[in-house]
């Protein structure tokens, strides 16, 4: 009796899961709208599984909801724009492109779940995503095992592409960004001493801290103190007071924009007048709303600047604005680049199998991305310059480019 009961329970659990498999959940991104009525109909019916013979499916995983939704949504916008343009330009090998996107709520386990779904249910040709390195790290082994190439638009942790030879990225790595800011601070700003305020909840922040620390010291500067906070804190005065007493000439805060504004205000309140420096996590339209005038005169490194005069960048900005009514941020630019690198590789690949596309991506050289020219190196990382932006009167201004 007892045995039977357990068996029933086990079967019930299995049955539920199977039922779930039969009704899979999809989120179609309507990138083919207006270009292909047939694919549009498929998308609308919520059907899943491999695409028909005339479409190529591209998988995307991003955080579309939750606290980090802005990153995911920007990236998706960039990808959608790229795919629309590529479809208008005739698609790949006579086929239309379609993106299937799943939300991972910024959780590794959900990212792994989503990528498994993309590979085994949807049988996508290429995977794009994620923004956060920890989520990309959850996805990468699955993609690697299934021999499906994966390009992350903006995961900067070096470990991501080390997972295997199917994992690529179109952004620079933490090490370079930290180096770029250290170099800029030392060479251009002529700063001799600096303090660091890191976000201990974010691997990204810790990575930048490490590199900035070593590089700045190598250049002959001195790191006077390192303090930490946790993403979501609202009172940074204790750390800032400690920093103030160390009297640095510059304060490097490699965190996310959500905290930067508050930190800047409290720093000014305590009478800290040093230059504030940051990384690409600062990039957001709300940065200056939160920070106000406290941020004036700060610098941060970024992937691209909307002020870049190159015609293809300006064209991208114009088109993006037409569709989404806003100036693209760097995440949108990177999403756009990632999608275009993938499409370019598929065009060059001899067929659309994973290994062929992988080889084609690996051979990408001097690709004109909107966020810098992209060459994939032997470690499957993009080699490209970083830009330095300055905050002035609630706006960001392009200052200089730092090359590797």
């Amino acid at each position, binding site marked *: 009796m*007892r045995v039977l009961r357990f068996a029933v*329970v086990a079967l019930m*659990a299995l049955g539920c*899961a199977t039922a779930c*498999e039969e009704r*899979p959940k999809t989120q179609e991104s309507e990138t083919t709208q207006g270009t292909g009525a047939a694919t549009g109909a498929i998308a609308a019916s919520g059907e899943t599984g491999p695409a028909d013979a005339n479409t190529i499916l591209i998988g995307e995983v991003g955080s579309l909801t939750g606290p980090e939704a802005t990153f995911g949504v920007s990236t998706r916008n960039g990808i959608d724009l790229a795919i629309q343009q590529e479809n208008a330009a005739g698609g790949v090998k006579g086929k239309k492109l379609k993106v299937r996107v799943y939300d991972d709520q910024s959780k590794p386990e959900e990212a792994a779940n989503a990528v498994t779904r993309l590979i085994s249910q949807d049988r996508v040709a290429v995977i794009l995503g994620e923004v956060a390195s920890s989520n990309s790290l959850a996805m990468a082994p699955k993609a690697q095992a299934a021999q499906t190439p994966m390009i992350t638009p903006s995961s900067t942790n070096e470990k991501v592409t080390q997972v295997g030879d199917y994992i690529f990225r179109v952004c620079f790595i933490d090490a370079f960004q930290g180096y770029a800011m250290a170099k800029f601070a030392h060479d251009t700003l002529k700063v001799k001493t600096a303090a660091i305020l890191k976000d201990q909840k974010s691997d990204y922040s810790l990575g930048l801290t490490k590199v900035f620390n070593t590089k700045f010291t190598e250049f002959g500067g001195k790191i006077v103190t390192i303090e930490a906070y946790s993403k979501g804190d609202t009172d940074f005065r204790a750390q800032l007071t400690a920093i103030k007493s160390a009297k640095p000439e510059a304060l490097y805060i490699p965190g996310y924009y959500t905290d930067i504004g508050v930190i800047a205000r409290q720093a000014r309140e305590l009478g800290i007048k040093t230059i504030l420096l940051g990384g690409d996590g600062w990039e957001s339209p709300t940065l200056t709303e939160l920070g106000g005038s406290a941020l004036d005169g700060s610098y941060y490194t970024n992937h691209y600047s909307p002020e870049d005069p190159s015609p293809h960048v300006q064209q991208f900005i114009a088109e993006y604005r037409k569709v989404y009514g806003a100036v693209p941020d760097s995440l949108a630019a990177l999403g756009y680049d990632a999608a275009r690198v993938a499409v370019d590789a598929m065009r060059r690949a001899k067929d659309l199998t994973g290994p062929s596309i992988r080889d084609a991506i690996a051979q990408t050289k001097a690709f004109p991305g909107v966020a810098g020219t992209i060459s994939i190196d032997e470690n499957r990382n993009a080699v490209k310059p970083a830009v330095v932006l300055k905050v002035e009167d609630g706006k960001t201004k392009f200052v200089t480019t730092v090359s590797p």
Partner: protein
Amino acid sequence: MESVAAPRFSGVPGWLRGPLPILLSLPILALAQWATAQAPFLVYIASIVGVNVILAVSLNIVNGMTGQFSIGHAGFMAVGAYIAGKFSLETKDVYLPFMQSVAASDQLMFVFALLLGGAVAAVFGFLVGLPSLRLKGDYLAIVTLGFGEIIRVIVQNTEMFGRALGLSGIPQRSSIFMVMFWVFLTILAARRIASSAHGRSLLAIREDEIAAEAMGVNTTAYKVRAFVISAFFAGVAGGLFAHFVGIINPGSFTFVKSMEIVVMIVAGGLGSTTGSIVAAVFLTLLPEALRSIFTQLGGGDQTLAQRVDQIRMPIYGMLLVALMLLRPQGLFGTKEIWDVAPKWLSRRRKGMR
């Protein structure tokens, strides 16, 4: 109890009665493993469900059977995940020569990693259980929460555990067989403890601590032991989790995760093992199901489907309030499913709980 039910098993020799369910489960699990070999997504979902069932059933030992209120279960899960994950990372390339194949050796190492993770979590369970010697009810709840947070902060500040990034590249050795086997073991353990002298003492503590103490039940020791066994299985669940997700970081084991488990056992009925199982399965699959329903209904408009997970948390909150107001005992109260099921399902089982 068992002895009362004995006549039904009269054909089974005594020594076989203990391991029989486990032996019977093996071919079923092997069948499940074979059937799902080509469906990694199904395996993934089933694994998540399985881990949640283990967590709910194990938390129910403390919260439901013993009547203590722990809201830091994710902390134990984290300990198990980190210890098992770290062990597997360090011994990735170790091959046990006496095993026949690399795969078999890996599986044995995996089992060992799980046991290690569970054991260390159990030690933490012991440490967290100690305050329950002096604290009751809501105070204990806050302390368990605090312990969970402290474990998170420690992990976050330790290089060995990868700090904020966590551990990545954990070998993916988990399988549906392994997950379901542990689910099965957890449920079996919970049920068998419940129907032993041990379990009766726990229930007695839940019902009336002072009376239990006066009847010779060493309440403090039993409470600590309930924490220990509960933490052990939470640790195993964490270990399983680490081996199918492949990356763990402190963000996966927050207060929110603890609360999800609490919602499960409260919805299922504190003290009801089957209730916990049903609620864990249902609440894990619900967002997935909602997502597909919204997709079907919404047609091209995907916003609702995308918002499922965002809406889930406030709905959990309201569910808790509504449950407490309308049915504070949860789905099954302290009963098991066969106690409340219609008569045709259970012809006996009075006094069996």
